[in-house]
Every structure is written in C-alpha cells, then in structure tokens.
C-alpha cells in the first residue's frame, strides 16, 4: 500500500469515527425527543406524580433535583475552591500537593455505585440522617468535588503571577491577593467547573438512589427524602410503570443537561477570550 493510500484510509476512518460519535449523540437525543416531547405539557412539569408515576407530572422530582444540587454545591464549592486555593497559592509544589492531587484523582475514579453505598452506610445509617436531601447532597458533593478542585485549580493558575506580585509590593497580604485579584479573575473558570459538575450531578442515579431515597413527596426540610428526575426515570422505566412518562422525564433531563453544557461552553469560551 502506498503511503498516500494509507493516508486516505486513515483519514477516512477518523472522519467516519468522528461522525459516528456525533451520530450516536443525535440518535439518542432524537429518540428521547420523539418519544418524550409529545408528553411534556405545563401540567406535566407542574403537577406531582400520581399513582407511582403512572399519571400526573414530575414537579416533586424537579424540586428534589434542584434541592439536591443546591445542597451538594453549598458543600462542594467552598471545599473544592478552598482546596484549589491551598494547592496553588499556599503550598510549594512538593510531597503534600502530590498526595492531595493523587487523592482527588482517586476520588474521581471511585465508581458512583460505591460512593452511593458509602453514603448509605455513613450518612443514612451511621449518622442517622436517613434517606434525605442532606445525605444525598453530601454524597453527591463528594462525587463532584474532584471536578471542582481540578477546574478551580486550572482557573486560579491562569491568573497571571504578576497580579500577585503587584499585590505583594503594594503591601497586600496573601489572602487579600486571593480575594481581591485571584478569585475575581478566576471566577469565570471556576463557574465553568461548577456548571460542568451540575451537569454530572443532575444525571446521577447510583449515588442518589442510595442516599436521597425514592420518595415521591416534595422535600421541604433537608432531612426529607425525595426522588430526583434521573432516579424517577430509572424507576418508572425499569418497572414498566409508564414508558410515556419515563421518556418525557428523560426529555426534560436531557434538555437540562444540554442547556447546562451549552451554557458552560459559552462561559468557557468567553473566559478564554478574555484571557488572551
């Protein structure tokens, strides 16, 4: 085979691979939209599920999902951004930073079902939080923590060192430099990471089913159980309760994730543009 021919074949394979990946995405979205969209009405979005999800809407699961995400972000953002600040601003690259980084990598690699089981044993049973928004929020926070640490670190590193030097020679403390110069300039990048992790958290089932539970009631207190959209979809689809409602739920879920991803790409783009 001539090199020229090999080149053509390789190129052809790569292009078809790229298109196949894109085609799969479109196929999934198309199936869910075709089967789900006709069932989405305002009543579907604003009514609570009835008869185990056979009838009614998904309002309580939307509330559960949003509630769960807010609680997990309240925990994960300070912890993740704090870790990132510590790693980039307050330590010299060395053993400690390596250990912390390796630890977060490992945390990112833990299968979510294991995290769910861990959350179930520790928060639900041992600490007695029961199936609740609190247990689910903490467990989900553990899951998204590595994403937030990693993206925040990158964003903080992208802030020019010279800004910190200026802060220093003008008599500013390290913390003043962090709060007045580093974080405001890293904020768009940190926000991008947060939105990406929201995208991951919104579709998570394994962690959530073990820790938030599956109650269809609308949660009010953080000690109430609930059912996220992803879990709701999983249950009504698997148990064959209502395929129509399952697809409609999935469509709402996919729309949310799509919206979040597009929004975060837009933010990232603006962030990169502002830096150059």
């Amino acid at each position, binding site marked *: 085979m001539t090199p020229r021919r090999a080149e053509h074949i390789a190129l052809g394979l790569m292009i078809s691979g790229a298109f196949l990946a894109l085609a799969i995405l479109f196929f999934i979205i198309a199936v869910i939209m075709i089967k789900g969209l006709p069932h989405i009405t305002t009543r579907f979005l604003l009514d609570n599920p009835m008869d185990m999800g056979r009838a009614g809407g998904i309002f309580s699961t939307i509330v559960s999902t949003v509630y769960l995400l807010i609680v997990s972000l309240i925990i994960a953002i300070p912890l993740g951004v704090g870790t990132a600040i510590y790693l980039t601003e307050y330590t*010299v690259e060395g053993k400690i930073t390596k250990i912390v980084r390796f630890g977060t990598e490992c945390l990112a690699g833990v299968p979510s079902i294991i995290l769910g089981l861990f959350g179930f044993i520790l928060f639900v049973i041992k600490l007695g939080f029961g199936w609740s928004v609190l247990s689910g929020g903490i467990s989900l926070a553990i899951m998204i923590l590595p994403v937030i640490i990693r993206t925040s670190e990158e964003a903080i590193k992208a802030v*020019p060192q*010279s*800004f910190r*030097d*200026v*802060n*220093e*020679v*003008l*008599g*500013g*403390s390290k913390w*003043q430099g962090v709060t*007045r*110069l580093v974080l405001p*300039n890293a904020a768009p990048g940190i926000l991008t990471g947060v939105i990406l992790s929201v995208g991951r958290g919104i579709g998570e089932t394994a962690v959530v089913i073990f820790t938030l539970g599956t109650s269809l009631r609308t949660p009010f207190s953080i000690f109430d159980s609930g059912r996220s959209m992803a879990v709701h979809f999983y249950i009504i689809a698997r148990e064959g309760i209502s395929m129509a409602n399952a697809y409609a739920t999935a469509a709402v879920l996919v729309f949310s994730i799509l919206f979040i991803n597009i929004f975060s790409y837009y933010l990232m783009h603006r962030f990169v543009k502002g830096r150059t």
Partner: protein
Amino acid sequence: MQPPVIEAENVSLKAAGKNVLNHITLKIHQNEIFGIMGPSGGGKTSFLRLINHTFRAQKVETEGHLFVLGKDALSEDINPTSLRRKVSMVFATPVVLPMSIFENLVYGLRIQGIKGKSTLQMAAERGLKAAILWEEVRDRLDKPARKLSGGQQQRLCIARAMAMSPDILLLDEPTSGLDPISTFRIEEALKELKKKHTIVLVSNNTKQIARVTDRCAFFLMGELVETGETSSMFTVPREKKTDDYIAGRFG
C-alpha cells in the same frame, strides 16, 4: 548630604546554595536617585528585592544587615507588609490590574482598609501628578487601565506606587520595554520625584544611569565593584572593570 535611608552592611545572599550577593556595603541617601547597574545575573534585582523583602527562592540564607528606614530588612521580625507600604516597587514590565485606572491607583490604599472617597481621590491625583500622567488621563479615570499605551501603563504603575506616598521607590528596569519618548517622560518624572522621595533605579542601560542618577553602584557577579557619585564614576572610574563596562567593552 542627606542622611542615609538604606544602609547595607556586609550583605550576603545565598539562594539554593548559590552565592547571589557577596558582602555588599553601601549607603543610599534621602532624596537621591541611586542607580544600580551591571550585566544581568549580577544580583541587581536580588538586592532590590531584599530592600522590600520580596526576594523569593527556596533555601535563602542572608548575612549582614540591611537597614531600611532604620529597620533591618533581613531580620526575622520585620513586618513585610508595613515595610512595603513605605518602600514601593515598580517592575520591568508594566502590570496593570484588570480594573479601571482609578481602582488601579487606589488598590494599595484599599487593601489598607481606607474607604473615604475624598482620601482615595486625593491619593489617585497625587500619584498621577507624580508620574506626570494626570493631564493625559484625568477625564477617563473610570476607563479600563488596559486601554492605556505601554508607556502610560508603566507611568500608571509608578503612579500607583506613589499614591501610597512611600518614602522609597524601587524601580527594576522600568523603561526596558518602552520607546525613547516614554522613557524620557519617566525619567523626567523621576527627577521630579526625588525632591520628596528616595529612588533606587536598577538598570542595565548605562546611559540612563548617567542621565538620571546622583550616585550609583556597579554590581558584577554578586560583587559590588564600585560605588560613588555618578558624575565621577562615569568620568574617572576607580576600577578597570567599571571603566570597561561603561565603555561597553562587556556586559
């Protein structure tokens, strides 16, 4: 001659086992422009960074005393923040913060907790006038500082340092990236500034040292070769090495 504000007595500096400065002894007097020249790697910037306590490297060892405004900047119990409020510094490349011209100017005051609007405005005006930038930007203080030209940005950095009314201004090759006209403007500003402040100017441009400094020192590979009146050093240098450097035979 005015009393010294910076007195180095036998200052030696080792960073990561390497000698950076060897037994430097010199005095810098009030209201003078003191130049430090020499080829790069000679320890000029390191010496400057010892003065405001911003020298950073792993395993730093210092010897001797470096009295800055009466306090030893090399001692353990120096408070770096209060030192830097009196000893400000401007870098080789202008660093404007991504905010308005006004916010750049008052950054140093804001981090001291000063909030009064009139105090901040007065400080901003004082800084801009000191750096001869006031006329050019007085009507657009709320515009982003990044929109200024390179020369204006560097004068803004000087203005930002001067807004804190420091006693000493340290300049690390402040005109190395600027065109001749911007350089001229900055040099004019420095001559005006020395009436009230003490300026230490590091430069590897010997012509600039000759133009603006009153006294100067020649650093070569961590050693202080010679120090004295600029005029006499440039006409009758005591050391052969100084003569060679000024004549452009090396460096």
